[in-house]
């Protein structure tokens, strides 16, 4: 998939991150590789070979620093049963962003740029700054990140849906995270999945505009959860420590 935006990430920028992954990423690669190899050596047969070999590879990459950044592409589309003008205006208004963005904090920066924060999973402050590279009212908004560890660029499109079904809103973007698949795997471990964040943000947007509120069960009563119940709540992303969102009021 290609996304056409007006800004092409420069070759130097890509190369620099290819060649020099952060120290943290390299350390992570060495550590996880060692753990994997050690686990492999305690096993028998094919498991042993596979785990040990993968572990060894991660250690090698960690030490040599040859970790290509992980490149990902995300496409998410929703149909919202509201007029295109209304959806576009709602999305464009920074005051509405905290109401529907899920796991992403975004605020206007200087000179029309956007400041993004992905919170602090595992204490890592993941921030990025982006600029709008192209925009046409009620049709699309394209963006690209400014130089930084996290690179991303993409486009939000608004299109009238057939048969008076409202507006098709789609987000398509590419991103690069340092430290390759290890970086991405670590991200997933702490609940950072770009596809999930964007999909749930768009879902919240749809729910707000159509139903006037975002459905929730956080704060409802339950019996004793026990260890198993609490573990399942993490897996189903229903953690109680999340802020209870009283949407629409």
């Amino acid at each position: 998939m290609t996304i056409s935006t007006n800004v092409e990430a420069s070759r130097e920028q890509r190369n620099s991150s290819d060649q020099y992954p952060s120290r943290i990423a390299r350390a992570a690669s060495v550590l996880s590789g060692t753990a994997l190899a050690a686990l492999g050596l305690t096993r028998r047969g094919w498991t042993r070979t596979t785990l040990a070999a993968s572990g060894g590879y991660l250690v090698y990459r960690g030490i040599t620093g040859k970790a290509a950044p992980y490149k990902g592409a995300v496409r998410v589309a929703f149909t919202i049963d509201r007029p295109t003008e209304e959806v576009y205006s709602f999305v464009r208004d920074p005051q509405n962003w905290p109401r529907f963005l899920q796991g992403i904090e975004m605020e206007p920066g200087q000179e029309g740029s956007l400041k993004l924060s992905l919170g602090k999973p595992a204490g890592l402050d993941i921030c990025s700054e982006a600029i709008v590279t192209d925009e046409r009212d009620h049709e699309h908004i394209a963006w690209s990140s400014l130089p930084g560890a996290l690179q991303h660029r993409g486009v939000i499109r608004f299109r009238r849906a057939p048969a008076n079904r409202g507006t098709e809103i789609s987000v398509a973007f590419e991103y690069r995270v340092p430290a390759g698949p290890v970086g991405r795997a670590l991200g997933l471990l702490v609940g950072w999945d770009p596809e999930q964040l964007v999909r749930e943000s768009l879902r919240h947007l749809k729910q707000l505009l159509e139903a006037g509120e975002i459905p929730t069960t956080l704060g409802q009563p339950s019996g004793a959860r026990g260890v198993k119940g609490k573990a399942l709540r993490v897996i189903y992303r229903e953690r109680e420590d999340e802020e209870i969102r009283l949407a629409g009021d």
Partner: protein
Amino acid sequence: MKALCWQGKNNVQVETVDDPKVLNPRDAIVRITRTAICGSDLHIYDGYIPTMEPGDILGHEFMGEVVEVGSEVKRLKVGDRVVVPFTIACGNCYYCKNQLWSLCDNSNPNAWIAEKMYGYSPSGLFGYSHMLGGYAGGQAQYARVPFAEVGPIKVPDGLSDEQVLFLSDIFPTGYMGAENCDIKSGDVIAIWGCGAVGQFAIRSAFMLGAEKVIAIDRFLERLNLARKANADVLNYNEVDDVVEELKWMTGGRGPDACIDAVGMEAHAHSVPALYDRAKQAMMLSFDRPLVLRQAIQACRKGGVVSIPGVYGGFLDKIPFGAAMNKGLTLRMGQTHMMKYMQPLLERVQKAEIDPSFVITHRLSLEEAPQAYETFRDKEQQCIKVVLDPWKEAKAA
């Protein structure tokens, strides 16, 4: 408050939990006056519904009095007596606007789980797994009802709780099962399963113009209750082959439509049945689609197979060649409750039907754990259990 909580397979307990609060502007809190155990709750009890969490409050058939409303609730007020449908719907999305209420786009907070399993998410349901919303259910003293202006219907004072309680699920579910059959005057309808949904499907099929209804089950009390509604009965324990028997009973044509009011935990005494049980026991499948196989095989050419029975996952050895080559229509889905509640309430008001006929057990909430066991084992001729959450348990 007191609530019945799921704590694992074959383990439900009455626990003291927090009272529910209004969490969203369109919520209401209902003080529950009557609640029931549904046959589909037994699928949860037996451990066949995925994405349950220990501590979940069960129950999706309940009614009561509104005691609190959120800031955006105008059409309901404190003191209103309402029946709450088991499906939760926003009322504003494409599906709600097109009367496909159980497919509402906006009522499942965990839609992503359902999307992984089913491609798209159906509506949220009360007390029926986290994939379908994870909403606390109504086998409790109070419940929080989201989108309270859309689902609950007010009931007139002249009708008792027992007469209107089943508008929450089983009466509309049986009715939609029959309506999906496209019944024309003179049709013959075969219905597998004479539990509560089957009983309402039998009566609804007659209301919609069926000439003959063949009710299939193995429990005499259920077959007797079917007979009271003028159904012909077929005890599958007493015949060699249900499909052949149906052919014999319908002049060699086969039923015009077949209703599977059983779902994923069908019983029978046959080699395929043993095979399904073994697969379920090994967690290779959640479903035992024995009835669906028979219904497809038995249905006449060009007929309809209607499936109100609940299935969860992947079905094995479905005779799809028979369905295709006989040109069958298959209809299914969770009930589009809000389409049926008002018209069926009117039928109750006009005394065309008194849904309380199906009740066999009236108990307190404290007695619910025992009632689940009794209902599962079909002991004491149990067909339908109604609970009063405020009644003190009878001293043993």
